[in-house]
């Protein structure tokens, strides 16, 4: 199957999933933090799992790539600093990074245990 179609199909599911998390949580930044950390755990698990390339394109590049977002994260961080909360902006930026990196490692560890 065409790799672009596989990535696009995963991208549709990822974007819809992120949109649904956003409408459920309805709190600025909590939804972005949640999708970015969850998506990092899942992608960390995927790259440590022996799956074929098509599955990696659908779930990894497509779904995880689209479910998580850097642009919303960057906008929210800049907006926090701009509204006079530079410490909250720093905490949000470093907290997201730390949680995502721990998430990648945890996802990888879970995959190793399962496989």
């Amino acid at each position, binding site marked *: 199957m065409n790799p672009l179609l596989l*990535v696009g199909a995963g991208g549709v599911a990822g*974007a819809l999933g992120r949109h649904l998390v956003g409408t459920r949580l309805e709190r600025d930044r909590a939804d972005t933090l949640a999708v970015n950390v969850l998506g*990092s755990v899942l*992608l960390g698990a995927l790259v440590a799992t022996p799956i074929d390339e098509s599955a990696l394109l659908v779930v990894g590049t497509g779904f995880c*790539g689209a479910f998580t977002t850097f*642009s919303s994260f960057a*906008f929210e961080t*800049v907006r926090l600093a701009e509204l006079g909360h530079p410490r909250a902006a720093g905490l949000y930026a470093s907290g997201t990074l730390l949680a*995502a990196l721990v998430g990648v490692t945890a996802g990888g560890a879970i995959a190793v245990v399962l496989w």
Partner: protein
Amino acid sequence: MSESHTLSRAEPLLLVAVGGFVGAVLRHAVSVSAPGLGVVEGAVVGTLAVNVLGSFALGVLLYEAHLADTLSAETRLVLGTGFLSSFTTYSTFAVQTSDLAPALAVGNVAANYALAFLAVVGGRLVARWLS
């Protein structure tokens, strides 16, 4: 009547889906065609490129909403929530960062963070200039 009600509820999802498809496909195209820089592989450079470009465009889009508000909610949904949020990625950035040697990982975080934040500020300047 119930049919049009279903359609109006489904419309935001359709807009997000269309934007999400195009964003993910375009991100993939950039990442496979990005050239590596010295010791940094092409995929890392591609992720940096989409994150910075997408942050700039989202900055223009969202500051335009604050300043002038001429775009429709549908346009913001398809371009912002759908396209740009799918075009950019945090999970790939995080996985690639954990795969890099420590010094390169620090450099990758610094480059993605600093350039994306500057891009948002650049987007605000453009939105102000447009409005």
